[in-house]
């Protein structure tokens, strides 16, 4: 349970930091770079969510398939 809460906080933190970097870069007129930062942040978070979902499905498998 503890680990899951940490993961959520981590994702939220990444979101906040990425949003701040996006704002700073956009204000300084480097909009293309700002978009790239957002895309990279999105991919990183997606990767974390996918690995969490993977562990969730594995757990479900062990519960219902009696491996």
């Amino acid at each position, binding site marked *: *349970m*503890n*680990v899951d809460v*940490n993961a959520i906080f*981590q994702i939220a*933190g*990444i979101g906040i*930091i*990425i949003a*701040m*970097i996006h704002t*700073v*870069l956009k*204000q*300084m*007129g*480097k909009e293309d770079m700002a978009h790239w930062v957002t895309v990279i942040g999105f991919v*990183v978070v997606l990767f974390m969510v996918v690995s969490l979902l993977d562990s969730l499905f594995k757990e479900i498998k062990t519960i219902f398939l009696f491996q």
Partner: protein
Amino acid sequence: MGFGWIPGTLKFGIGADDMLKVIGAVLILFSGTMFGFYQAALLSRRPRQIRQFIQALQRLETEIVYGLTPLTIAFRKLADQLPHPAAGLFRRAGEALAASTDRSAGDIWRQAAEEQWKYTALKSGEKQILLQLGHTLGRSDREDQVKHLRLAVSQLQAEEGAALEEQKRYESMWKSLGVLMGALVVILMY
């Protein structure tokens, strides 16, 4: 597992493991901040150094036109008068010029510029201008050299304007971007 409330124990605690993590996080955050400030310092140093080189070239022009000073002595005088990065270039070029007999002044100037370049915050545009100038140094009569020196000065002034513009735009950006990048790395690895 993170610091804060430890389930089942009803108390707050920080283990040795977490202490190590916190120290690492602080170090990464610090280095990110310093990186950002370093980039900002480079940006603010560039226009100042371009201005130093403009001054140096104007003094060199004076030496050539009114003093009729030989290049070796002129370089040494400039090296004594100028502040740090520009002085190094002129001192190096002056020493090499005094020591050698068979190389052209342009060749020596280029070599000195390549050697001293890492101590400056200048970019390749200014380097090209200075190298171009080196080809004509000590090669033709006074009027021709003065023309080339004036040309180099006006080109450097254009570069200075661009550098000032860049500094205004990107200095504060780098300052906050360094901290943010450090924070991002810390959160990613925590």
